[in-house]
């Protein structure tokens, strides 16, 4: 088994305009998906959500967020899979895809 980082990008648009019920439904989809990964032994670390603000340090410049919404990294998780193809396949159930977001799947470089 190899390890992969799931980087969740975008898909956070319009949450502020959603009703409580719609937000709860999105949350429940995520919880079900994560639970499914965990039950099949693929979830190494649930990871964390990230705050939307931050600093960008580049050369000698330090600038504030925000970043472009579609590229904004909202969180990450660590999964275990046979290979990159399987890791990519597993990410297809992520609810972020229903909201125009993306999952970036990156193999962890082994020691």
């Amino acid at each position: 088994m190899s390890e992969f980082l799931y980087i969740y990008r975008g898909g956070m648009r319009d949450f502020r305009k959603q009703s409580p019920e719609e937000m709860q439904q999105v949350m429940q989809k995520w919880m079900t998906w994560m639970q499914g990964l965990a039950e099949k032994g693929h979830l190494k670390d649930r990871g964390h959500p990230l705050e939307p603000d931050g600093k960008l340090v580049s050369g000698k410049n330090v600038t504030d967020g925000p970043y472009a919404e579609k590229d904004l990294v909202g969180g990450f998780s660590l999964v275990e899979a046979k290979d990159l193809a399987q890791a990519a396949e597993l990410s297809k159930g992520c609810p972020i895809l229903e909201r125009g977001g993306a999952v970036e799947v990156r193999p962890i470089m082994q020691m």
Partner: protein
Amino acid sequence: MGPAAKSSAGDPVEHLFRHESGRLVAALTRVFGFHNLALAEDVVQDALCRALEVWKHHGMPDNPSAWLMTTAKNHAIDVLRRERTARTFAPELTRLLESEWTFRPTIEAAFGAHAIQDDELRMMFSCVDPRLTEEAQVALILHILCGFSVGEVANAFLCSAAAAEKRITRAKKLLATAPRLFELADAADFQSRLTAVHRALYLLFNEGYHGANSKTAVRVELCREAMRLATLLHEHSLAATPPTLALLALMCLHAARMPARVDERGSLSLLPDQDRSQWNQQLIAQGQKLLEDSATGDAVSEYHVEAAIAWCHASAPTAGQTNWEQIIALYDTLLRLRPSPVIALNRAIAIAQHAGPEAGLTAIRAISDCERLSTYPFYPMALGELELQCGRFCSARLHFTTALALARNPTEQRFMESRINACSGQS
């Protein structure tokens, strides 16, 4: 625990966001003041957003309500500290929030479990402001206390989103002119506001039970919300009056019949034809107990009478064994308390059950203001049904055709079509 169906252990979070949203908006409005209602809603929305982000990774905390409350409280503290020079908050709390000595204890007290429950009730009383129409009051209750978005309110009442938006925005503007949440200890206005709350919850329940929306899920939700809020009244010492108990009894006894109102093919099933084994016996028992408990004091409310009628139906083993005489007498009482052609129509239908279709038709013809029923599909439907029972198929068919034209949704349309077909089979 009240009779409103609380979520079962297997699904502990059903409508959690919706209900917590209502509680937290009420609590925050008390601290911020009514003129900052939009700010309170923003803080709650933010807390729900955070819950969504954190819980989707880490799962639900052991006590999700407490988690949301703490998150909203912390955010409120930030807002209060940041903006206390720029904004005014609740006038009665201003001095307490200005001093560091009293700031924390004031906030902690405002977010105590009892305080929040009181605030929910006070918000309910605030929403039935007499300057608002009943429709606006109900929309506001759904929006603020039940966490329905404007779109969801529009869907519930089958109006356009723009119309719902306009109604809610106007109502909120008017509420913002109130200095604070309604004071429950304000004895002068308490009774009249409580009566208005009863009426609003009754309308909300009826919209779910008899409304035009054909989606069963939407209708069940409206009934459930009405029952949840009526249960809040029932749990509060000041608000648990006999009419409150009778209203909740009425809701329980009607809700008990909901599973049988639509059959397995999604078709409407009228009371005499319902499979009574599908009636929820637990709700019937709760309704009976509440109705018994409501029989104190000397005032008989319309809810007492309606609950008693519902109880006559719920306690009859078959339609034929229903005590129609008693039901007719109760309808007579109800007509005196609240004259309405719809009630008169129901009374006539009960007379038909008791004394035959001709007697029923006579009673319908005697309804004085029946022109107010001209768009009500169940008026020609009842006429058709009784004509059919008298064997006058042509006349029956005409009435059912009128009813079909008035049907408000596909379920009603299918029902009227099946009645038209019943006439053809016999003529």
